[in-house]
């Protein structure tokens, strides 16, 4: 079965290749194969698969990756809207 895809062109993931030192961490921690090494630097090869879990940015010691991590959960977002705070999944 092919993997399911979510909505295109919405995620906040950004990679600043100029900061990358080629440590490969992001390619190891990403659960959706978003990164691949290209010419000894990280490259985003499938951006729309990103679920904004934040594993890559947390493990990039160079600070080359930025995104707004969070949980993709409707209840959390409703909580966030209602309380005006960060979305959280505390049910």
């Amino acid at each position: 079965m092919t993997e399911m895809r979510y909505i295109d062109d919405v995620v906040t993931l950004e990679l600043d290749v100029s900061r990358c030192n080629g440590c490969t961490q992001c390619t190891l921690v990403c659960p959706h194969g978003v990164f691949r090494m290209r010419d000894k630097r990280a490259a985003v090869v499938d951006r729309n698969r990103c679920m904004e879990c934040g594993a890559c940015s947390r493990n990039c010691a160079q600070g080359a990756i930025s995104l707004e991590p969070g949980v993709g959960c409707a209840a959390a977002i409703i909580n966030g809207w209602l309380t005006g705070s960060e979305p959280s999944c505390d049910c």
Partner: protein
Amino acid sequence: MSECCGPSQPCCGGTPALEYEYGPEPYVDGTVDTFAGPVKRVTTELSSEDRLGALRVRLAIARNDYRVRPALYAIGAPDDTSPVLVTGNYKLTFDTLRGELGGRDVWLLVIDSRGVNVWCAAGKGVFSTAEVVRGIRDARLEQTVSHTRVVLPQLGATGVAAHEVRAATGFSAVWGPVRAGDLPAFLDAGMKATPAMRRVHFELKDRARLVGVEASVLWSRRSVIAIGVLVAAAFILPRLTSLSGEIWLLTMAVGVLAVLAGAVVMPLLLPWLPGRTFALKGAIAGALLLAVLLAVTVGAPLELWAWGLLSVGTALASFVGMNFTGSSTYTSPSGVEWEMRRAIPLQIAAASVGFALFVVSLVMGQVG
């Protein structure tokens, strides 16, 4: 997918560590001596008690937080050169891991993840750099092993920064595979995971398990009350209105079926339902099921009031389906917000129009 680290439970539950009392440890079958003192050894055979416990957690009969005391454990007869695998203290994870590691000599460092699986715990920040550092220090790992390598669960990477663990403890991290079942192959390959081992999937059995867990959680709480209210309403409403009891029963059946469509049918059929948004998938599942229900009970072509019920039910199924995003393994918060901003106004519109149709038909005496 095994429940090694993936979402075998919705990301809820867990009480603070300090308030938790750990039970007996029937899986401990001896000790292994190290320079840092004796370490408990655990069996790799799962007992009937372990399996029963897992079943009870799945069915939400037992507490959802089902924990192991955070500590270093030995599997087989590890020595100072043996690998160290780090994991959380959700007992189902612990059981799955030791079940996969039969015949091997490894150390298992169990971190306090508040009884929540690694992925959810990492997302909530309880399986964190600080907890891993604390676990390594408390176990005095540098005296137990002569190497400086720990295997961290890949799904813990959301909460743990490997370079910070190394800076704080001297231990560098190797990322283990997503699924516990791949651990033997990973270890045999010299701690290398293939790209496939690094990918998270969302297969039918994963979704079925989530549906089961969520349903059992719901079942045990609100739905008992809700069903009671519905049954009472089915008796009372016909006496208050001129409508027949059958219409009210049908209305309630529409409500129940709409929730089932969004919470059970939509998740199970996820890849086969058209569209990318969960709201649309839920709406389609709901509309199809409800159309069949209404056609069978009141007959096609539908009258106006039945269209009204269909519209309200479809909106409800869509809303419930949208909530399954929280259990999926591939939805981004930006995407969920994107779909909610578009779907919620439509859901409200469909529900209002449907309700208005139903009431207008009712007033005009077309119903019953």
